[in-house]
């Protein structure tokens, strides 16, 4: 675990309020596990003290470049979105436990389900799974056409089913509506999104194995402050810390 000062190589709005930030620096060499996150400082002189957890969306080890996708919604991410190429960003990471792509080796298929700003880590995960010869299908849920992003990039990796709440792109409805089609070959499920979505996905996917990635407001991001706990019945302590035990958990492991 390290603190890195990375340099912005690009920071552009790719959909309404959705930004793609590319950062370069030697620290990126350690960012090899999808589902891990960076704890990103908004800046040195700002009144926003807490770091923002953002998932690793892609890593180019040769170019020493990591990609983050984020929604500029609150003050902190808005300030991030105003940063220019050449400025530095202070990040901790990679933090947390990401998606295990090992355990999936005996599977042929994977179904990756993401909602809204939960979509980014699925990109890096999809690439990694594909590299292992696994056939990847994405189900990506957005509010609307306007709010959707990265669809072409996902299509390069595997079949990509899109749902939008208002029906302006793909299927009208939620990601779980796209799961109504019979799911064949018992794929492994990987899902990232708001808790309500994860809950619905777990229900739909009953009987299947898989992983989910949780979100919670964080203090330290490293397991020290107990801000980000989630109850579980499967561990003796009765809880997990999302930042350090997660953010990725086996389906059914935590109480959503």
């Amino acid at each position, binding site marked *: *675990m390290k*603190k890195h000062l990375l340099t912005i190589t690009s920071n552009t709005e790719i959909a309404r309020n959705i930004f793609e930030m590319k950062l370069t620096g030697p620290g990126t060499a350690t960012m090899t596990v999808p589902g891990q996150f960076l704890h990103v*400082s908004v800046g040195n002189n700002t*009144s*926003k*003290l*807490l*770091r923002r957890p953002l998932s690793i969306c892609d890593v180019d080890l040769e170019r020493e470049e990591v990609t983050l996708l984020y929604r500029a919604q609150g003050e*902190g991410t808005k300030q991030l979105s105003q940063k220019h190429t050449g400025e530095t960003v202070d990040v*901790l990471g990679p933090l947390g436990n990401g998606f295990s792509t090992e355990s999936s080796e005996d599977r042929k298929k994977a179904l990756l389900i993401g909602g809204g700003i939960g979509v980014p880590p699925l990109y890096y995960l999809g690439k990694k799974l594909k590299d292992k010869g696994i056939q990847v299908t994405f189900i990506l849920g957005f509010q609307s056409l306007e709010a959707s992003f990265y669809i072409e990039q996902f299509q390069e990796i595997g079949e990509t089913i899109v749902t939008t709440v208002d029906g302006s792109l793909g299927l009208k409805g939620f990601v779980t509506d796209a799961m109504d089609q019979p799911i064949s070959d018992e794929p492994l499920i990987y899902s990232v999104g708001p808790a309500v979505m994860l809950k619905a996905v777990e229900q739909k996917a009953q009987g299947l194995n898989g992983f989910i990635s949780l979100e*919670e*407001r*964080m*203090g*330290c*991001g*490293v*397991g*020290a*402050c*107990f*801000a*980000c*706990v*989630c*109850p579980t019945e499967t561990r003796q*302590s*009765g*809880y997990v810390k999302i930042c*350090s035990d997660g953010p990725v958990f086996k389906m059914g492991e935590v109480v959503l």
Partner: protein
Amino acid sequence: MSRLRVSLPGLDMKNPILPASGCFGFGKEYAKWYDLSLLGGITIKAATLEGRFGNPTPRVAETESGMLNAIGLQNPGVKGIIENELPWLEPYNIPILANIAGSTEEEYIEVTKHISASPLVSAVELNISCPNVKEGGIQFGTHYKSAADLTRKVKGVSEKPVYVKLSPNVSNITEMAEAVEDAGADGLSMINTLVGMKLDWRTGQPILANKTGGLSGPAIKPVAIRMIYEVSQKVSLPIIGMGGVSTAEDVLEMMSAGASAVAVGTANFVNPFICPEIIEKLPELLDEIGVEQISEMTGRSFNQWKTPLSSR
């Protein structure tokens, strides 16, 4: 390095910096970032008699130059701490300040008995100022008779010096400090968090599941400095100062106000290396103002003519 040494009851520290309770877990996590033996000491997360899960999430919210927390004293219970957490800190060989909490006097007393008996614990910090639990905590910390009573009882069973951690949510912090001094406290820790709240303007609803929380961070430093300044002139107990400290300059400001050692809380979340970075910077700053021993800084705001600086 000996110019940074400070000595408080039970706490012989090679520098005045220790992480504040609740902001450093039991040390394990930050040990992945740096060598904990660099620290002057460690304050561990509050211990209660039984394990506690704490409050529902969200437990933190961000405010301008500060944050709110309502963790609610989550911890594995005093036995779990003694068995599983403390041994792990032994190799670092630094003083451990054990923060203790409870819902009743009896619970405080039991926890103190257990934890103060551990050879690894150097002193206990009586947390009568946690704003995030329904029972105990701050209710002892805002009425000075109950604060004094509890101090006396805890002191009666403690095998180690007792620091009482004061709440800033009071009309008269000096009366509170005097009351616990009279009751036998060996030192004071101040300040705990201010009770605060944040609402989502769109829904009108609190961000924290617990509704209110404790405000910490640079936003509260002026309140901490003022309270330490007032109290240190009225009591003769050493003070572990805290509240918004984020830089080496802040440490010297707080010592000037009257603190003998300084705890760093929220700043650990901003920068996990903050404690060793501050420790490294302190000698530079002392050189800049021509002070030899950091202990001379204590109370400099009011007693500089009484205890002349080494530079004069």
